C-alpha cells in the first residue's frame, strides 16, 4: 500500500490548514505529523507531504533539511539527547554523557545495533537552572547525575514505545 496518513493523523492534518493563509505555512507541523506516523522523513514521505500541501518537492526538502528535529535518518526507539552546552558543562554533563556512552556502548550520533537507543549531544535545552539535562523522546529529565541517567536508561521498557 502507498503512503497515507492514518485517520487520526489525517484529522490533525486537516485541522492545521485553517490556521494559516497558505499551505506552505503548514509544512513544519505537517512534517512533524508525518514523522510521528512514519518514524522519519524518507524521500517517499516527503513526496507525500509535498503532494498533500500542493508544494514542490524541492521546497519540502529544503525546509526539512534545515531543521535538526526533522529526521532524515531513522532514529532508535529511544532518542536520548544530552545537553553539553555551558551551564550543563559547569554542572557535570560530560560525566553524564560518558556514563551513557559506556552503558550503551555507542558514541554520540550512533544508534545501538538493536535499534533501541540513539544517543545525541544537543545544544542548550533551556533548562539550565536544573542542569545537567537530557531528553528521552522529548521528555525532559533534569538535575541528573551519571548514575541517575544510567538508571533512567535501564528503566526504559524495551518492548513498548512510551
Amino acid at each position, binding site marked *: 500500500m502507498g503512503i497515507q496518513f492514518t485517520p487520526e493523523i489525517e484529522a490533525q492534518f486537516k485541522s492545521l490548514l485553517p490556521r494559516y493563509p497558505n499551505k506552505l505555512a503548514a509544512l*513544519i507541523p505537517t512534517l512533524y505529523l508525518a514523522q510521528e506516523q512514519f518514524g522519519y522523513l524518507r524521500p517517499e514521505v516527503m513526496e507525500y507531504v509535498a503532494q498533500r500541501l500542493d508544494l514542490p518537492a524541492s521546497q519540502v526538502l529544503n525546509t526539512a533539511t534545515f531543521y535538526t528535529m526533522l529526521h532524515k535518518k531513522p532514529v532508535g526507539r529511544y532518542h536520548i539527547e544530552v545537553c553539553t*552546552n555551558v551551564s550543563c558543562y*559547569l554542572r557535570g554533563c560530560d560525566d553524564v554523557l560518558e556514563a551513557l556512552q559506556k552503558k550503551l556502548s555507542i558514541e554520540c550520533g550512533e544508534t545501538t545495533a538493536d535499534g533501541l537507543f540513539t544517543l545525541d549531544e544537543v545544544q*542548550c535545552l533551556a533548562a539550565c537552572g536544573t542542569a545537567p539535562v537530557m531528553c528521552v523522546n522529548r521528555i525532559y529529565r533534569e538535575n541528573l547525575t551519571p548514575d541517575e541517567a544510567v538508571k533512567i536508561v535501564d528503566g526504559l521498557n524495551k518492548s513498548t514505545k512510551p
Partner: protein
Amino acid sequence: MDIHHMATNVLLRDPSIDWTNLDNHRKAGGFEAVKKAFSMDADEIINETKRSNLRGRGGAGFPTGVKWGFVPKQSEKPKYLAVNADEGEPGTFKDRYWLRKDPYPLIEGCIICAYALGINTTYIYIRGEFLEEIRIVEKCIEQCRRAGLLGKNILGSGFDMECWVHPGAGAYICGEETAMLSSLEGKAGQPKLKPPFPAVEGLFRCPTVVNNVETLVCIPLIIQNGGKWFADLGTDRNGGPKVFGVSGHVKRPGLYEFPLGVNLKDVIYKHCGGILNDRKLKAVIPGGSSCPVLTPDEIDIPADFDSFKVVGSMLGTAGVIVIAEPTPLIEVLLRIARFYAHESCGQCTPCREGTGWMVRILENIRKGLATKKEIGLLMDAATKIEGNTICALGDAAAWPVKSFLQKFPDEFSRYLVDAA
C-alpha cells in the same frame, strides 16, 4: 524547575497553585486587565506601555511601546502578532516557566497587544524541544476559546482574535525575529536584512509585531496597575520587575524575580546562596552566552540594561551564568564558540567561516599546538565578524571570544607552545 520568590512577586506566582487551570487564574483576577483594555482606546494602551518603560525581554531591550508605535494604524493587509517562545540562548530558561506553569498571562498580553494594534491573528512560536509546553499552551488556548476569551467577540467586546501555537524544529537561529517569521512561513529559518522591519513588512509580508514571552506577560500588569506603577518598580528607563535565571556554580540555581536594578553581586551571594561548595568566583556571564564576560571585580553593579552597558556587557536575557574556580575558561569558551558555529545559518561568509575558524583555533590552543600568533588570529577573526553580518548571531559569536581573551588572557596563554 526551581523557582525562588524574591522582592517583587508579580511575574512568578505562588507555585503551590495550578495556574494552568483557568478557574484558578480567573479567581486571582485573571482577564480583568483584558476587560480594562477593552474599555480603553488603542492609543491609551500604547501610551501606557510607553510610560511603563518596558523594554523587550528577548535580549535586545528595545522599548516595547515604541516598537508597537511602528505598526501602521491603517493597513489593507492583515496584521499579525508573533510571540517569540524559541528560547535557546545558552543560560536562558525563563520563558519556559510561563509556557509550562502559567500561560494565561501570556495569552492576556497577546489579546491586549492585538486589540491595541488591530491584529486578529497571533502565532506563538515555541521551540520544538518544548513538547510538553506546546501541549500545555494549546490546552490553555482551547480553554480560553471555550470560555469566550479567544476567537470571535472576546468577552462581548466585538473584538476577534485567534491564537495558534506553531512549533519550531531545532534551530536556534529561528529565535532571531526575521528567521522566526520565515520559519513560521514554512521555510528554512534564515535571517533577512532589515529594513524592512517586521512592523512594516513581516509575516506573509504583512505588518507584524514580534515580542518575547516575558514582554507580553508584563502587559496585563501594566494595563491593570498603570504604566507608572511598572516604571517605578525598576530604574530610570528600565521599567519593571524581571525574571533572572541563574545557572552554573551557585548554591541555589533557578529562576528569581527582581526589580530591574538589583545588585548583581547580591543576586549571586545573597539570593542564590553564594558559590557552590564555597569555591572562589572566577567569572560571570551576565545575560546569556553572547554577553561579554565579567570578572569578579566587575559584578558590584545594578542589573539593568543601561548599567551593564557601562561595564561593556549586556543584560541580554538576564540568564546569569556563574563560573567558579578551578574551571578552565577555555573549555567554557569552546562550548560557547561551538554553539555559535553549529547554529550559524551560513548565509554570511564572516559568520559561517569565522565561527568555524574560532572553534578550530581554540581547539588547537587547548591541545597545546598553538603559538601567540594564533591568539592574534583568534582576536582578528572575532573582530572581522563583528558588525559585518546580516543578523546579530555573528556579533553574539564574536563578543564572548573578545571578552574572554581580553579579561582572562592567562587562561589561554598558558597553553601556548611559546608561553613565556
